[in-house]
């Protein structure tokens, strides 16, 4: 149970509707109107500064941790500099659309229409990208679901982990600022580099000033409220909060409360600067621990108070809403903002790092049941059994949290990406399941690539079955294949083709980002930028790791190829031409063939025949992707994670040889296709573990669904802990569990009001079930339960 205060917050949180606050957009735009002609980075820093000075300051009732991106309890903001057209087109239906609704005021809409959008016409990132991307790539890339990177040109990148350990808590923004001031004085503007550096440091001064002022405005507001407050306890709280906001984030924190408030201000700055996904909190239990032990020892705080502060932060992280287009909402359903927070694991020198805060974070998620932060745990062979059991306790509650990661494989993935051993041990998650490090600049989710599309084009002379248009390489007709290997090779060629265009889409976007949308504020949070005087968007981070291309539908392609191998070339029961016809008519009239296809081995049942194909495809995918270098010269990386993108990705694919019907969902990550992993969770895990996880530096994801009655007793939880350890000894990276009975989900579909707090794991993250679209809900219900086994 949480404190009364937290229970009350929760209540008002659950009952408030996400609303669009326009102040950030207005301030950001006005500033740009005032700075025409200045350098891009300075203009963006000034705009950030303006936002910090102008947006309304709101302290909600009884809050201990304060600060908000807008005036509403659940505010979303729009960033027209990235993309505004969708807002203009869609804002009238914001409150009625099927996925992720927002409230928006009529007057505010008018202001956006008349004062904000006109300025950005022709200037937004989206418009620039669409203008610059070559036609051939555009055909595959723009809103097709084939290869998709719209999160890299319709919005900002996000995907950073603020460095509290070495920068923010150590220096505070005041020191960063003075450092910048010194550098400006040192530099002579005699070279191209020096000119750029001077601009960078000038921008640094502006953003540091901005975030400090923002906190001071909160301090003033708290004082003002304290004056009016009659309740003496609350008055004291407000005075304390006012004191804290005077101090942080300007100066380093000294107490637990100060540190947590500093985390939230830092986070607010990130959100206000670019409103992006995956602004991660990193290893919270590690960097907060010194403050915790200090305060407890000094009698400043007790455990219950610390717990309340942690839970306050959890609510804050859930309050802000990532405003997205209805198209993007299909991919990132459920107001999710992917702020990942990682606990457990090992220290930089390899000891177990689990501490009291690790447990308190688990408890916070259990208590508040909010969809943020995305709680991740790192488990290694020497992780205490108690900790893993506490993790299993939380899993059994059914919030879908935490995502459980193999500590060692995470390190291996980062070693493979070029990090030092100590840094590789110090990893934390980005977004959903990408192993990441706070000194890394990386596009951790650069492109989603639809593997099933490559197969479709190989079997259909390069054409999409849905649109009939040529989208892939036009090679041989289906009748011309003489062997299984020829089919497989054709698929791999189509796949390489999609990878090539994913790379083109990414480097084009990277080029434009470096030109147009430098990230002066975020450059303060990532090590390397300040030293080098180079913006994060220009490769300023200590490590530049190449962008990640995520494959969707491994299971579907492996299942399909094994059908072709067996039924066509081994048993010779059908010829390819017949199969092609069956797929073209979505199996209508070919029920017998479909039955045979469905009876073929399916990935996820520990059957080598099909699992080996999955391994072959994923290995190829990795090598092919790694052969490309990004805008800064780093190798691209592969991943099989998944947002809820397996649903829209499936909607553009016709029937597949595995028996899947046209336009139905594909599969996320390295999970088995829904409803086909009928053997056992252990078999599903063994199949998934056959994939070489360690080379996919962008992460891999396995989703296993459990019915809650299998996790009621301590015995069950121990078994769960054991299979996690076993799965990890097999070399796999990540697993998460959905523990919800289908019965409950059906009820929640019918009576959403009674199930507002029901959390489910969508793929890489959890969100409120009732916030999902009907299709997304159905897909979740359909996933295999092991209940009946």
């Amino acid at each position, binding site marked *: 149970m949480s404190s009364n205060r937290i229970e009350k917050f929760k209540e008002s949180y659950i009952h408030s509707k996400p609303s669009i606050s326009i102040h950030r957009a207005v301030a950001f735009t006005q500033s740009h109107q005032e700075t025409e002609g200045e350098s891009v980075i300075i203009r963006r820093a000034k705009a950030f500064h303006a936002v910090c000075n102008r947006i309304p300051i709101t302290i909600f009732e009884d809050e201990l941790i304060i600060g908000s991106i807008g005036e509403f309890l659940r505010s979303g903001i729009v960033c027209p500099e990235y993309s505004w057209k969708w807002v203009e087109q869609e804002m009238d239906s914001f409150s009625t659309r099927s996925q992720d609704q927002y409230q928006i005021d009529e007057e505010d809409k008018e202001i956006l229409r008349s004062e904000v959008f006109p300025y950005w016409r022709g200037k937004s990132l989206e418009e620039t990208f669409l203008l610059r991307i070559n036609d051939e790539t555009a055909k595959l890339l723009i809103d097709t679901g084939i290869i998709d990177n719209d999160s890299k040109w319709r919005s900002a990148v996000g995907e950073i982990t603020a460095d509290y350990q070495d920068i923010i808590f150590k220096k505070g923004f005041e020191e960063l600022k003075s450092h910048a001031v010194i550098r400006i004085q040192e530099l002579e503007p005699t070279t191209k580099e020096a000119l750029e550096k001077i601009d960078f440091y000038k921008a640094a001064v502006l953003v540091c000033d901005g975030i400090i002022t923002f906190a001071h405005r909160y301090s003033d507001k708290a004082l003002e409220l304290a004056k009016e407050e009659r309740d003496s306890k609350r008055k004291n709280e407000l005075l304390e909060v006012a004191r804290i906001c005077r101090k942080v984030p300007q100066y380093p924190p000294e107490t637990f409360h100060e540190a947590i408030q500093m985390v939230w201000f830092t986070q607010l700055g990130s959100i206000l600067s670019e409103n992006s996904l995956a602004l991660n909190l990193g290893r919270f239990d590690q960097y907060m621990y010194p403050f915790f032990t200090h305060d407890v020892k000094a009698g400043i705080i007790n455990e219950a108070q610390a717990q309340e502060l942690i839970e306050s932060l959890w609510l804050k992280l859930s309050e802000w809403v990532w405003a997205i287009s209805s198209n993007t909402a299909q991919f990132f359903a459920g107001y999710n903002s992917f702020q990942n927070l990682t606990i457990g694991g090992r220290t930089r020198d390899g000891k177990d790092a689990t501490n009291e805060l690790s447990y308190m974070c688990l408890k916070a998620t259990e208590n508040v049941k909010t969809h943020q932060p995305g709680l991740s745990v790192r488990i290694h062979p020497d992780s205490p059994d108690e900790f893993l059991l506490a993790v299993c306790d939380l899993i059994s509650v059914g919030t879908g949290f935490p995502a459980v990661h193999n500590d060692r494989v995470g390190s291996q993935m980062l070693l493979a990406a070029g990090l030092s051993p100590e840094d590789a041990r110090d990893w934390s998650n980005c977004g959903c399941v990408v192993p990441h490090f706070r000194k890394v600049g990386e596009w951790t989710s650069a492109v989603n690539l639809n593997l099933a599309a490559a197969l479709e084009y190989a079997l259909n002379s390069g054409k999409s079955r849905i649109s009939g248009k040529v989208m892939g390489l036009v090679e041989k007709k289906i009748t011309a294949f003489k062997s299984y290997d020829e089919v497989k090779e054709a698929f791999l060629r189509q796949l390489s083709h999609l990878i090539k265009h994913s790379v083109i889409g990414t480097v084009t976007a990277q080029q434009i980002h470096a030109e147009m949308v430098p990230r002066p504020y975020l450059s303060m949070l990532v090590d390397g930028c300040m030293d080098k005087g180079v913006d994060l968007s220009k490769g300023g981070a200590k490590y530049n790791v190449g962008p990640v291309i995520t494959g969707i539908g491994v299971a579907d392609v492996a299942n399909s190829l094994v059908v072709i191998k067996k039924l066509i070339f081994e048993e010779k029961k059908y010829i390819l031409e017949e199969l092609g016809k069956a797929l073209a008519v979505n199996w209508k009239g070919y029920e017998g063939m479909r039955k045979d296809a469905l009876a073929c081995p399916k990935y996820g049942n520990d059957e080598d025949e099909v699992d080996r194909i999955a391994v072959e495809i994923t290995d190829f995918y990795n090598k092919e992707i790694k052969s490309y270098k990004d805008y800064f010269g780093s190798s691209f990386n592969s991943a099989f994670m998944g947002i809820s993108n397996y649903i829209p990705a499936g909607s553009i694919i016709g029937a597949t040889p595995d028996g899947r019907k046209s336009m139905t969902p594909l599969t996320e990550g390295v999970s088995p296709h829904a409803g086909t992993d009928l053997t056992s969770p*252990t078999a599903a895990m063994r199949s998934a573990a056959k994939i070489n996880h360690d080379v996919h530096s962008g992460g891999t994801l396995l989703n296993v669904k459990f019915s809650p009655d299998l996790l009621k007793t301590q015995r069950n939880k121990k078994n769960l802990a054991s299979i996690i350890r076993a799965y990890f000894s097999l070399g796999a990276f990540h697993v998460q569990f959905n523990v919800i009975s289908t019965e409950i989900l059906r009820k929640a579909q019918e009576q959403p009001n009674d199930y507002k707090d029901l959390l489910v794991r969508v793929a890489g993250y959890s969100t409120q079930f009732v916030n999902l679209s009907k299709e997304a809900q159905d897909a979740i219900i359909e996933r295999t339960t092991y209940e009946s086994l």
Partner: protein
Amino acid sequence: MKDSNGIVGNVFQIQRWSVHDGDGVRSTVFLKGCPLRCKWCANPESWKPHPEIFYFRDRCTDCAQCSLVCNHQAISKDEGVPHYFDREKCCCCGDCCEACPNGAKKKIGSLMRVEEVIKILKRDSIFYRESNGGVTFSGGEPFAQTEFLRELVLACKNFAIDTAIETSGYFEWEEAEDIIKELDTVFIDIKHMDERIHKRLTGVSNRKILENVLRISQNHHDVIIRVPLIRGVNDDRNNIEQMCQFLQENTRILGVELLPYHSLGHSKMDALDREGLEIFNTPDAEQVEHIKKIIAKYKIQNIDFK
């Protein structure tokens, strides 16, 4: 049973991720064949030692696809005549099961070699090790295939896989003794203490079973007594106290596990076109608690693998 490649047995299911039949994560091997005919049996498809065919009428659309593949004239082909399945003529080859597009027919049981079974069991070794789990042999009555069982148990031992058995207790001690010594855990049923009632409900006397309980408990230290708890049949104080007395005075066991009755067997009987089960009631939670208290009074541990 033997074929040219060695010992074979009739297995009707291998269930991986079995978490209620002993410690940890287990795989359970269900061996076909049972000398008893319990009137509450949940696995009547296990009774006969040879393969059988489930026929689920509610799934059948009378499409007659199955009749096309049957080489034994066991399925009527006449058009217009409702599809008729003649079990007398059926040899249980299972061809029709594969042909049926609606999953209305399912073959139960197939002959497997020891190595085939072990290969599947070994797949989850790593899960057994992490969870202190292993393999459980169940049925039917696993001792009904003594030779096959012996080979399986020895093979598991060879790979250091923990083994458990679920037995009705109805078997010849001399034939089973050496296997029992190899097993890590034995679950053995006591269905009723009264010989006459036992005979009426299961078709056999309980004498041999109780003797085997005694012998096993003298030869083995990990013995768990299982009681399928059925309301109004064996959940009366008298029967429970008698059992406890018997156990307390004569045996050393780990404890007793109560398994409240469920009626899963009936639909399976229908699918086998068989009769002979009775409908019973499940004792309510309160009654179960009450019985647990009686058992505890005798200083016998109540064990639960929930």
